[in-house]
């Protein structure tokens, strides 16, 4: 079967690649475009490691076929930092040690960024529900939630308030 030629926008820049018609967007990002920041955990839509933005919506890239992104806009973890400057979420994940093995981290950052863009001041409950589709086998989630809420507080200029109440 002939490979398909796909033209799309990735992290704000136009991109093109060749793929198998039934290849997932996740595989195309990793194998055709060498954007290996997006991870594969389950390939069944359950873990969130493969989270990307598609036309401004958070989606699992393992549940998207690569040819679907023709003419659309894809945002991946590689587009989150501005050059060498980390996004506040990335900085806070480091400060709070919100990662151990790191396989879940790109998915959490992409998903948390989508949350803060939609809801800049989430409650702990809102953050936990929004991120319920991102699985982490290492951290126990608490540090991740603290990092997200602390980022929100910093970006809103209300720092200090969120770091205490995030237990449990």
């Amino acid at each position, binding site marked *: *079967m002939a490979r*398909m030629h796909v033209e799309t926008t990735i992290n704000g820049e136009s991109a093109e690649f060749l793929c*198998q*018609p*039934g*290849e*997932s967007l996740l595989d195309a990002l990793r194998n055709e475009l060498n954007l290996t920041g997006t991870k594969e955990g389950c*390939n*069944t*839509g*359950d873990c*969130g490691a493969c*989270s990307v933005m*598609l036309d401004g*919506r*958070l*989606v*699992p890239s*393992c*549940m*998207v*076929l690569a*040819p*679907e992104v*023709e003419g659309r806009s894809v945002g991946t973890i590689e587009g989150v930092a501005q050059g060498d400057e980390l996004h506040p979420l990335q900085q806070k994940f480091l400060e709070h040690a919100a990662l151990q093995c790191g396989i879940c981290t790109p998915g959490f950052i992409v*998903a948390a960024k*989508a*949350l803060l863009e939609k809801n800049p001041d989430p409650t702990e409950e809102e953050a936990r*529900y*929004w*991120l*319920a*589709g*991102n699985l982490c086998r290492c951290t126990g989630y608490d540090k991740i939630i603290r990092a997200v809420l602390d980022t929100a507080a910093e970006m809103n200029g209300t720092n200090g308030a969120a770091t205490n109440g995030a237990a449990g």
Partner: protein
Amino acid sequence: MQSIPYQAPASVSEAVALLGSDAEARVLAGGTDLLVQVRGGVRKPSAWIDVKRIPDLLGVSVEGDSIRIGAATPAAVIFEHPELQRLVPGVAEATDLIGSTQIQGRATLGGNLCNASPAADTTPALIAVGAQCIVAGSGGEREIAVEAFATGPGQTALAQGELLVAVRIPKPAARTADAYLRLIPRTEMDIAVVGAGVALTLGDDGTCTQARVAIGAVAPTALLLEEAAAALVGSRVDDDALARVAAAATAAARPIDDKRGTIAYRRKVVGVLAKRAAAIAANRAQER
């Protein structure tokens, strides 16, 4: 799966022609059921027909006396529609329950109906509000009531070559409201053990004048329960009527035993959820 050809028709007629010419071609909506099934070796389609480029299948609109939801509209877009949330909160709740935030960005209403899982969350909610499926085939369009759409687990009333275009919900009358509840062992990311949807209308004196009760995950398809509705009509949705709703739902359930729940548990819980959903719908109707 890698080499299965992919096509993205731009119109309903183009999609219907593609589906009609190849019995093994499969509609691809959000892919959250289909891709999992194909990767698991359960299905082997000959072609992917991506329907997300067909304008008629996309978006929510309130037109005249009905609400129209395009079949390929993802759950997140449906839930975010403020007027839909206000008019049919139970349907909004059911869509919001599907999967995670990520799944919500993909999973479509049409896919939830066409996959025909007995546990599909939107089905009982749509049955309760009297929704109709708008289906297109080579001979034109026809309508199928949602309660008649799924004919068994994984089976629908769609003929070969037919496409689900949209779901049409009648705009609720005055003092009419709906609710949907489901039980899962955790708070997120699981499949319904039991689901129940209720829509009802209250008269000026608080007497219920119309009701529809539907249950999911307790039979091969979601069920519309005439007897549970009859228990509500003419009542003031009091404890006595609610107890009869619960008994009717328990009596109608024909569940399976599996790791998520035993037969006895599901039969008991479906009564409880039907009763609670009726009480919530009645409270909402009262406020309208």
